[in-house]
């Protein structure tokens, strides 16, 4: 089975103006013929959220790499949280608070994904589009995040199988997710697939980066991160 996997993270205009680091982080790594992906968005109000988001992506990769063939992802979440707490030390969980989205795709196309907090987790399995992220009940930037306590009920998790070309999973931080037309997410995923399948990974990353840097929504300010994995072969 063949996949195209691509991701980019760009610093937002607000952080550029203030000469602050990118508080988003992403991880995308090949794994036994499949892929492991993660994105994290450090809370803007916290002092070390860039550290928290980077560590979250590292922990996601390490944990998912060591997991068994068919993992029970919800059962693994407490250990991911514990490892994150260890990884951020000596920074306090409050200072390093971050959202987290992670996914693992095996070489057979089995996908497991989970999300805590803002952002968007999109999945297409057997040609059927699914939005895994629940609808937001409040306003922008009011989110649950990895902090000192693990709240299992605040996580969303999903699994499926990529059985045909164009099946895939997309992870977005809220810098992109909040500025997408909510009723066109399936079309957005289609367009992403159509563009990425014509490019190799390096060109795909450059294209994604330029798309995110020249984002069309007026007054956009947040850091933006997107990772996508699609099945390309029949």
């Amino acid at each position, binding site marked *: 089975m063949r996949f195209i996997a691509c991701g980019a993270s760009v610093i937002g205009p607000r952080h550029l103006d203030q000469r*602050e680091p990118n508080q988003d982080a992403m991880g995308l790594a090949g794994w036994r013929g499949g892929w492991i992906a993660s994105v994290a968005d450090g809370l803007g109000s916290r002092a070390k959220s860039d550290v928290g988001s980077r560590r979250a992506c590292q922990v996601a990769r390490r944990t998912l790499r060591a997991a068994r063939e068919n993992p029970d992802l919800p059962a693994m979440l407490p250990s991911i949280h514990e490892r994150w707490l260890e990884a951020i030390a000596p920074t306090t969980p409050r200072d390093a608070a971050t959202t987290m989205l992670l996914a693992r795709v095996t070489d057979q196309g089995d996908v497991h994904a989970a999300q805590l907090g803002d952002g968007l987790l999109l999945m297409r399995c057997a040609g059927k589009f699914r939005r895994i992220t629940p609808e937001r009940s409040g306003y*922008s930037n009011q989110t649950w995040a990895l902090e000192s306590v693990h709240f299992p009920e605040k996580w969303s998790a999903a699994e499926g199988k990529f059985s045909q070309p164009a099946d895939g999973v997309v992870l977005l931080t809220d810098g992109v997710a909040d*500025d997408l*037309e909510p009723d066109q997410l399936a079309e957005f995923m289609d*367009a992403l697939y159509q*563009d990425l399948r014509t490019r190799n990974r390096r060109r795909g990353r450059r294209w994604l980066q330029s798309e995110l840097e020249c*984002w069309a*929504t007026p*007054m956009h300010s947040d850091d933006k991160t997107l990772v996508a994995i699609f099945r390309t072969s029949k």
Partner: protein
Amino acid sequence: MGFAKYQEDIVSRYVGDFAMRTTHRQIAPPNVPQPTKTNQSDQRKKKMSSLKKFAVAAPRPLPVIVLADVSGSMSENGKIEALNTAMKEMVSTFSKESRLRAEIQVGLITFGGKVQMHLPLVAVHSVAGFADLKAEGVTPMGAAFDLTRQLLEDKDRIPSRAYRPVLILLSDGQPTDDWEASFNALCESERAQKATRLAMAIGPDADEAMLRDFANDAEAPIFKAHNARDIHRFFRAVTMSVTTRTASQNPDLPSAFAVPPPDDDALDLDFQ
């Protein structure tokens, strides 16, 4: 070839080239079709990469909703005039603010005799002006809370991508309707409870206990206006706080709410 010869060669080549070009007749550009309105949008679509089509075209809003008491008692001691001027000043300052990372929207709900949306929630730069408030009737504050809650819960008018709204309540007297149930509904409803709430008590007859319960911003305890100048000072503080938020790292965080000191030169009578 010596250096002098080399340099001469360069000079003659480029000077000659330049001279030749100036003597050339200007060639008319090929007949390019002028873009019309329809093919302009087609061209834009073609040039636009595939992802930008899915980006929302409107900036993220930051709603500021003022609940103003315009009951009969507000006509005394120039309160309503001060409120009119202060509101207009605030709208004008918002619309001139250029260092924004959000679109400030302003809405004005008045309660005096009846409750009405005096200024619908719209982007502040599109507010051309609004009719002066007139003070008359009783104080149906509960009905104003209901209207505010409906507005805040409406995802079409305030989308989920909006920054946390700011509610500003100002009153000079006791509510005359059953306000408690409406107030609790506002404070407990899913989206409305997440708004930042500021309050100003105008004059000595205001229900300070209720206004204190309304205010939920730890940085901004209830403000007491003793005279018309205080109303201006409060609105200046609101303006500064909101504009600081839109330019700050996280517009959802409450910014310092500092009421500017009174102007010592101005003379003003206290509200009785």
